[in-house]
């Protein structure tokens, strides 16, 4: 039995323009939270993969994925709403906060996506003005993230025995190349994969390039971190 909130949010979801489910969830959240930037990331083990975002939410999602910190990670791990209502006044994220401010974002809110007791990821909303969300907006964000979890789980393909599994929401080639690059770097530097990923992130941060760009250079063998 859907509550009236769920029914209303499902209505908003179905009204969104064509697109896959994750994209619709993002644009629906942008509407109900009055935050133009929204992104959806799914997580597994220690990696969080950006799956979909509104145009205004892409940079924030990329920054969180590249830096490996942010409200998205916190909401995913804690299962609770995480808010940074004024990044200029106080940011719990020492690197991400200033980086978001440079892209014109002043406040950020993340809602956990969970289903069946499993933490699946988070929905993050970005806004250029400071201030908290209203109680209704917080409840809407939570409910929308919950709906997203259920729908993503329901819509996934049957698990296959062979080949890479089909995903309900594919993060796209760009996200995968980062993991290919971490595999190559792990061999080159003789490091565990997690450390290799940290080295990639650090390098991308130092040279001020997106992680995906660095990863593509490594996979194309135009860059090796042991030569930098």
């Amino acid at each position, binding site marked *: 039995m859907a509550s009236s909130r769920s029914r209303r949010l499902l209505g908003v979801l179905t009204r969104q323009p064509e697109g896959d489910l994750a994209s619709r969830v993002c644009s629906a959240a942008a509407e109900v939270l009055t935050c133009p930037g929204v992104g959806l990331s*799914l*997580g*597994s*083990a220690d*990696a969080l*993969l950006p799956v979909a975002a509104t145009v205004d939410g892409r940079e924030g999602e990329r920054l969180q994925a590249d830096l490996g910190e942010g409200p998205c990670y916190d909401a995913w791990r804690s299962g609770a709403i995480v808010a940074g209502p004024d990044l200029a006044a106080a940011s719990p994220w020492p690197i991400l906060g200033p980086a978001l401010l440079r892209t014109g974002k002043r406040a950020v809110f993340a809602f956990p996506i*969970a*289903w*069946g*007791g*499993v933490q*699946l990821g988070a929905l993050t909303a970005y806004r250029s003005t400071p201030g908290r969300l209203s109680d209704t907006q917080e409840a809407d964000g939570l409910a929308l993230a919950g709906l997203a*979890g259920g729908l*993503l*789980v*329901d819509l*996934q393909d049957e*698990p296959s*025995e*062979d*080949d*890479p*599994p*089909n*995903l*309900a929401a594919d993060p796209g080639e760009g996200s*995968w*190349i980062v*993991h*290919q*690059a*971490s*595999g*190559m*770097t*792990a*061999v*080159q530097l003789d490091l565990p*994969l997690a450390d290799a990923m940290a080295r990639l992130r650090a390098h991308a941060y130092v040279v001020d390039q997106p992680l995906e760009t660095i990863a593509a250079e490594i*996979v194309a063998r135009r860059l090796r971190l042991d030569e930098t």
Partner: protein
Amino acid sequence: MTKTQHTEGRDRSLVAAFVSLADTLVDDFDVVEFLQGLTERTVELGLAAETGILLTDADGELRVMAASQERTRLLELFQLQSREGPCLDAFRQGHPIPVDDLAEHEARWPVFAPQALAVGFRSVLAVPMSLRGTRLGALNLFNVDVGAVTPEDQVVARGLADIATVGLLQQRMVRETQVAAEQLQHALHSRITIEQAKGVLAERRDIEVGEAFELLRSHARSTNTRITDLAGTVIAGRDLPLD
């Protein structure tokens, strides 16, 4: 004790029984413990001397899931092995099977009836556990006296069977939801592992990541290994076995 007093005492225990069953429907739900509790409640309520529960497993096969005492467990097992008995009839037909005197039903259940009589039971009430077409199993109340099960007892037994059914279906749904969510997460994790293994293999063998994937896939097929497992082996520091 007057009839009224007796009924009031029964009502109180009944409420307590329902509450204690409902209490087990929260966190840390354990199916076996739940059903064991149900068999004990039926005995405490005086509905049965002993109680057994048959439940379908994942393949739809009936299994003995709980019994208030060991001899009841054996009787239930006999019913399953001989494929006859009031419990199976209640499960198949979807309505309660009250048996006032087993001695009159040796022709109906030639294997079960003599066995039940031999261990000292005289009457049985079998109640199906089902909800809207989903058949889960049956609850069996064994008594030592002829005609021990009153119509009132039947109503109470059905109530207990119904609440147990709702609890089990709910638990099954929670479990299925969790499994589906874990599958989604597992799919993501597998994909990450495969991508990492592509990178590791490409670097070790000085090939392109595309070739590395083909190598992984063909090796997985020829060795009948799941590609995710093989990828896990590769990133754990071992190369593909040389072929």
